[in-house]
């Protein structure tokens, strides 16, 4: 395009991809320079994952081509892509849990001596690479025992080898603590210095600011703009992503809080969390912040009856209850929205109507027989209330992440809970839907008088939605901050101070 004699590291040229009638990518073209960090941003469903799939050979484009270092490439699977120096690391690490770190790193390239596996060399190579990258991992440890962040490091160590041309990181920091994330930034900066091009997919503005040389915005499967990072400010970037401007803002609460709905006293699950005491009032939203692995989700799950070794007391509307199982807690008016939407939140192979009806089946059946008209009425009502895209007879698998999350939420709202436990309610959801979910939460608390406990790793979200913020560190409640006193800095200080032993 310009007079630069070097070909771009990667050129995406007029790439299109359709899934049945859905247009995932339409005529997308842009270039990535050698040795740059290129942020790829866009709402969920904008086409980022599809594009990654096309680049790595996971998906075949309907049209257009991918050009690596001036030569058109046509990878038929990710293995071929890796052989050509193109590797991708996804949000959910894809490792062999029963094998060691070294074995995972060496996958497919095991050093051998004769017909035998050369373990000594394999471990030494893995150790050298981990040290080189600054990841403090024992190569002989089993992957099953690692934290999410550590498994991600293993994935990266596996992807990085001598002839790496292009590394794609898909929301790499979503499960990382700030310390771990900065370690990852260092690695990315080093790769850039060595001439590797990095595609960085993220929803977090601050890390895009810190790392990216250029930014490409996708929206609804179309290329919106590629520009040097310095030319796009945050507001402009969000505007390009959503086609309008969205800000996460607090909405002042005018309705008074009621009496405590959920009270938790000295809740302990040995080795997971200890001596946790808090309460959530009618009409209140309490945010639960802390580092990943601090025990936040586990506390919410325990209240929902998912921990067998629980001690301490739980009261709902003043009445003591024993959280013996989800069914018992649902009967008491407690609902839990799990973090892992696709494995636990919805059943993708069933229809929207069946998903919404699932926890309410007892009230939607008589003598064991389904009352189908009631079921459909309920589904239609919730679909409208949450403005879920798609008809109630559509399969949930045909929906985007944001709409799946709405279905997961709708099924619980249909049970008319009094206490709503939300675990990362907007994890991986685009900015526009996120704001909708926040509005919905405010309405549920303030108008429908629910008590909401929201576990979230997204600090702007915690600050925008909560009336009060609990900070958990290493399984202990270390701070209980009224929203007026809560700031990102203060929350992080508590979260990390508690984390240091």
């Amino acid at each position: 395009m310009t007079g630069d004699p070097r070909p771009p590291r990667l050129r995406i040229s007029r790439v299109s991809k359709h899934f049945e009638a859905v247009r995932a990518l339409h005529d997308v073209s842009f270039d990535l320079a050698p040795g740059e960090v290129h942020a790829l941003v866009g709402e969920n469903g904008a086409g980022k994952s599809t594009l990654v799939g096309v680049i790595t050979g996971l998906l075949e484009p309907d049209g257009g081509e991918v050009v690596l270092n001036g030569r058109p490439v046509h990878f038929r699977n990710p293995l071929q892509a890796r052989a050509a120096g193109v590797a991708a690391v996804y949000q959910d690490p894809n490792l062999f849990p029963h094998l060691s770190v070294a074995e995972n790193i060496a996958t497919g390239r095991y050093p051998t001596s004769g017909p035998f596996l050369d373990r000594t060399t394999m471990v030494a190579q893995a150790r050298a690479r981990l040290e080189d990258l600054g990841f403090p991992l024992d190569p002989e440890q089993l992957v099953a025992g690692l934290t999410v962040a550590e498994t991600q490091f293993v994935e990266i160590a596996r992807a990085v080898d001598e002839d790496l041309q292009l590394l794609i990181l898909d929301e790499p920091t979503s499960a990382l603590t700030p310390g771990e994330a900065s370690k990852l930034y260092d690695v990315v900066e080093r790769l850039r210095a060595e001439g590797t091009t990095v595609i960085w997919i993220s929803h977090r503005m601050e890390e895009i600011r810190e790392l990216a040389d250029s930014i490409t915005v996708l929206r609804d499967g179309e290329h919106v703009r590629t520009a040097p990072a310095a030319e796009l400010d945050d507001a402009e970037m969000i505007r390009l992503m959503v086609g309008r401007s969205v800000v996460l803002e607090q909405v002042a609460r005018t309705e008074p809080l009621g009496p405590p709905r959920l009270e938790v006293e000295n809740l302990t699950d040995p080795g997971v969390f200890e001596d946790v005491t808090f309460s959530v009032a009618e009409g209140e939203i309490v945010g639960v912040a802390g580092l990943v692995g601090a025990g936040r989700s586990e506390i919410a799950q325990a209240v929902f009856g998912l921990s067998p070794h629980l001690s301490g007391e739980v009261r709902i509307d003043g009445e003591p209850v024993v959280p013996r199982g989800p069914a018992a807690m649902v009967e008491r008016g407690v609902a839990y929205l799990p973090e892992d939407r696709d494995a636990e939140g919805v059943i993708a192979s069933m229809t929207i109507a069946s998903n919404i009806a699932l926890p309410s089946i007892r009230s939607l059946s008589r003598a064991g027989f389904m009352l189908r008209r009631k079921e459909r009425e309920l589904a239609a009502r919730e679909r409208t209330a949450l403005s879920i895209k798609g008809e109630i007879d559509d399969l949930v698998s045909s929906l985007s992440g944001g709409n799946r999350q709405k279905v997961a939420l709708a099924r619980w709202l249909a049970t008319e809970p009094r206490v709503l436990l939300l675990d990362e309610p907007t994890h991986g959801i685009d900015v526009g839907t996120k704001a909708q979910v926040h509005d919905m939460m405010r309405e549920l608390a303030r108008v429908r008088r629910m008590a909401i406990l929201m576990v979230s790793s997204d600090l702007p979200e915690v600050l925008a939605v909560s009336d009060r913020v609990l900070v958990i560190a290493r399984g202990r409640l270390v701070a209980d901050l009224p929203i007026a006193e809560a700031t990102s800095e203060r929350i992080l200080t508590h979260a990390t101070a508690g984390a240091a032993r």
Partner: protein
Amino acid sequence: MRRAIRAYAPELLLVALIVLAAMWSSTLSPYFLNAVNLLNSAQFFVIFALMAFGLFPVVVQGEIDISLASTLAVGAVLMAKMSVAGIPLLVGLAITLAATAVLGAVNGVLVAHFGLPSLAVTLGTLGAYRGIAYLIAGDAGVTGITPDYLLLGSSWVGIVPSSVILALVVAAGFWVLMGRTAFGRYSYAIGASPGAARMAALPVRRIRVSAYALAGAMAGLAGLVWVSQYQSARGDNADGAILFVLTAVVLGGVSIKGGTGKTEGVLLATILLGTIQTGMQLANVPGTSQRLVVGALLIASIGAPRVVHLARHAWTTSRRRLSPTAVAQD
């Protein structure tokens, strides 16, 4: 219309295969395509049909029960013993159904409450229940069944054998159970995603145990049909029948991984297998080779979705490769 064809594609395919198998059989014997003859052959597959219906919800839930043929043997020898002891039919049937339901529930409890793999559990009870059947029956087996216990296997409504009517009534019952009740809905949800079912506060364990108990009771009912048709019962009754039963379920479109499948499919698959088996008997195919065919059908029906997937992939890939832009690239 198109949507309806798509939704019932597996069932339509089964109907087509049944017609083909029937045409083949009729070339082997001029007596095959005769209503009375067809219905009389059908009664010998009622036992398999009842067991297949019982197994159906278990497989929909993503589990398996290979002990059902042994449970049938327990049911058959219990019925025979009670007949000889002079216990009235309905009382005997109630006791048998209760006992076989308990045997099924034991499987269910081991799987659902102790989290043991269902294949291993029911392989164990396959042996254990067979042993119980031998203990009850003794070495010689039980003969001298009283007429009331034989009625089901030796009576007709018009030209239709009573046991065939029983199978059709049970089929209708399962159609309602799986399509119209909370139990059915729970079963599909549990099979499709056990994690999501648990998080949705579904009574997963209770539903699993119920499915196993129901499967056991259906095997017990099949035991009654057995006694009424063969007029005796022994410890080794129906040994190996699980191959036919599981094939019927999977061939009927019930995914071995759980979450899908219809009652209509299971019924049609049983009819298809029955037609093929009858045809093979007419063609004097030895019993050992018949088992080979049924076993191959089981593997084919488990493999079919995979083959369809691969074929579809190959088709789209080859089309791409032939398109002008792709050629220009290479």
